[in-house]
C-alpha cells in the first residue's frame, strides 16, 4: 500500500503531463512553420487520437451505449416488464431476438433497458470520485503540512478496504429495498458506495501532480505577482493535472460498471424489479439455467463486457496519446 505500489499499476499509472514536458519533447520534432499557430497539448493529443482506429471504435461504442441508456425506446418497442410465462426460456426467434428468460421476459428488451443502470452508476460514481478526490488532493498537495498528512492518512484508511468488500458491507447495512426504494436512489446508493471507497486513488494522483507542478517557475511567478490561491490552482495547477485525472476516470468508469454488475450479481446491488445486466446474468447463471437457456446468459454478458471494454479502451488510448514517453 505504499505510493509506489499504486503508481506502478499499469492501468492507473499516468504521467502527469506538464506543459513543460510536452512542449520540450515536441518542439524539436514538429517545429511550427512560420505563421502557424503555436501547438497546444490539446491539439497534439487530438492529432494523435484522430489517427487511431481504437479511439474511434471506443468512441462509437460509448456513444451507442449512452444513447441506449438515454433513449431505450429507440431500440425496442417491447415492454421490458411484460412477462409471458407460457414462452419462458424460449430460444431466440424472430419474435424475441435474444430469446426469453425464465419469467418469459423479452431478453432483448431487458438488455437494452439494462444499459441505463450501468451507465448511470458508472457516471455518478466516476463524477463523485473525481470531484471528491480532486478536491481533497488539491488541498492536500497545495496546503501541504498537517493537512496533507491528515488527508493522506484518511486516504490510506479507505484504501485499506477492498472496493467489493466495502461495497458488500455498506449495501448490506443500508440495503436497497426491492419494492420501496426508487430506481434512482438505488443507483445513487451503489454509486455513493463506490465513491466512498474509490476517492483515494484520484486524491493521490491529484496530490502527486500538484506537488510536481507547484515548484515550477510559472507558479512561483504567479504567486509573486499576487495571484490568490484559488487563481493559482484554477488557472495554473488544475490544467496541468486534469489530463491524468480524466484518463484514470475513464478507466475507472469501466471498472465501476463491472463492480456494479458484480454487486447486483451477488444480489446486493440493484434489486429486481430494476433492470440491470448484473441481475440478468445472476438469473441466467446456475447449472440448470445454463443448460436450459444459455441465450439468457450470453446477451447481457456481451453488452456488459462491451460497455466496460469501450471505457477502458478509451482511457488506454487517451493515456497513450497523452504520455510523452510512449511517443
Amino acid at each position, binding site marked *: 500500500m505504499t505510493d509506489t*505500489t499504486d503508481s*506502478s499499476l499499469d492501468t492507473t*499509472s499516468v504521467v502527469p503531463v506538464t506543459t513543460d514536458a510536452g512542449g520540450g519533447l515536441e518542439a524539436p520534432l514538429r517545429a511550427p512553420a512560420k505563421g502557424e499557430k503555436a501547438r497546444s497539448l490539446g491539439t497534439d493529443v487530438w492529432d494523435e487520437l484522430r489517427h487511431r482506429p481504437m479511439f474511434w471504435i471506443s468512441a462509437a461504442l460509448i456513444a451507442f451505449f449512452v444513447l441506449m441508456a438515454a433513449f431505450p425506446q429507440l431500440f425496442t418497442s417491447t415492454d421490458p416488464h411484460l412477462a409471458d410465462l407460457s414462452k419462458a426460456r424460449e430460444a431466440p426467434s424472430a419474435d424475441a431476438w435474444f430469446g426469453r428468460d425464465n419469467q418469459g421476459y423479452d431478453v432483448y428488451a431487458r438488455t437494452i433497458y439494462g444499459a441505463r443502470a450501468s451507465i448511470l452508476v458508472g457516471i455518478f460514481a466516476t463524477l463523485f470520485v473525481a470531484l471528491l478526490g480532486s478536491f481533497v488532493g488539491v488541498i492536500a498537495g497545495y496546503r501541504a503540512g498537517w493537512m496533507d498528512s491528515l488527508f493522506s492518512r484518511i486516504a490510506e484508511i479507505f484504501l485499506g*478496504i477492498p472496493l467489493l468488500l466495502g461495497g458488500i458491507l455498506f449495501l448490506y447495512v443500508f440495503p436497497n429495498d426491492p419494492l420501496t426504494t426508487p430506481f434512482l436512489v438505488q443507483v445513487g446508493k451503489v454509486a455513493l458506495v463506490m465513491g466512498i471507497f474509490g476517492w483515494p486513488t484520484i486524491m493521490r494522483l491529484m496530490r502527486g501532480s500538484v506537488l510536481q507542478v507547484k515548484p515550477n517557475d510559472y507558479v512561483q511567478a504567479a504567486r509573486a505577482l499576487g495571484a490568490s490561491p484559488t487563481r493559482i490552482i484554477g488557472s495554473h495547477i488544475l490544467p496541468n493535472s486534469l489530463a491524468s485525472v480524466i484518463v484514470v476516470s475513464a478507466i475507472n468508469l469501466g471498472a465501476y460498471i463491472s463492480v456494479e454488475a*458484480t454487486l447486483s*450479481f451477488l444480489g446486493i446491488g440493484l434489486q429486481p424489479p430494476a433492470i440491470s445486466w448484473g441481475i440478468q446474468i445472476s438469473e*441466467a*447463471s446456475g447449472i440448470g439455467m445454463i443448460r436450459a437457456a444459455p441465450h439468457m*446468459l450470453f446477451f447481457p454478458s456481451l453488452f456488459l463486457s462491451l460497455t466496460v471494454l469501450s471505457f477502458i479502451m478509451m482511457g488506454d488510448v487517451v493515456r497513450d496519446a497523452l504520455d510523452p514517453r510512449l511517443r
Partner: protein
Amino acid sequence: MGKYIIRRLLQMIPVIIGVTFIIYVAVFALGDPTVGRCGERSCPEGYIAKFRADYNLDKPLIVQYLLYMGNLVQGDLGTNFFGNRVIDELAERWPVTLKLGLMALVIESVIGITAGVLAGIRRGKFIDSLVTVSTLLLISIPIFVIGSFSQLIFGVRLGWFPVTATQGTFYQLIMPAFVLASVSVAYIARLMRTNLSENLRADYVRTAKAKGLTNARTVGVHTLRNSLIAVVTFIGIDIGFLMGGAIVTERIFNINGIGNFLYRSINQKDGTSVVGTIVCLVLIYLVVNLLVDILYGFLDPRISHD
C-alpha cells in the same frame, strides 16, 4: 532495514484502527445491526433491548468500539443467528479458499509473467499486440461472466472439467482457479510488459550489453529481476481482487469456502456473519499488504533507505 520495518508496523496501527472504526460505526452506530435477525419482519421491542444490551450498544460510542475491539483481538467475531460462532464457521472453510487462492496466484504469476516478458522484449511485434489486446479483453470481461461461460463451455458442453467443485479437490479446483486468476493475469502481464520495456532502455542494460553479455543474460538476469519487483508489490493489491473474485467464483462453482459462506450469509440476511467475515477479510488484506511492503523493502534497497 530494521528502522523501515518498524516504521511500516507503526504506520499500520492507525490504518487498522481507522478501518475497524469505520466498519464499526457504519454497522452498529449508523446502520441497524438487528436488520434480518428476525427474518422478514422487524424485531420485537424486547429482543432489540436485549440485543442492544448484549452488544453494549447502550454505552457511549468509544466504549462500545473498545469493547468490540477487545472481542476482535480475542478472535470473537460474534455469533450468527444459527447460534454458531462466526470464527468457527470461517475456521472450517478457510483451507479450501486458501487452496483456491494459492492455485490462482501460481497460475497468474506463471502465465502473467511469461506473457508480459514475451510482449516486453518483442515490443511492437505481433506477440506484443496479441498480449495487449487479450489482456484488454480479460480486464473488460467481469469475472462472473468468465466464470459462468467457462462452466458452460468447459464443464457442461465439452466436459473437460467438473462442473462444480463441492469437495474442493485439486482437480475440481483447476477451472475455478483459472477463472479467479483471469483478471489478475492480465494486470500482471501488462505490468511486466511496461516495466520490462522501460528497464530495457535503462543505462545499466546498455552497459551490460556493451561488456558483451548475451541477450538472454541481460534480459534474464539483469532486467527481469528489477521488473519483478513491481509484480511482487502488485500481489498486495491483488489479494483484494482475489477476495472479491473468490466470492463470485465460489458461488458459481459451489465451492464450500469463505466466499460462498459470505454469499449465502448475504442472501440469508445473516448480518453477524456478513460483518464478521468482511472484518476478517479486511484484516487479512491489511496484514498481507504489510508483509508485501516489508518484502518490497528487502527486494528494493532504495525504498528502505529513504
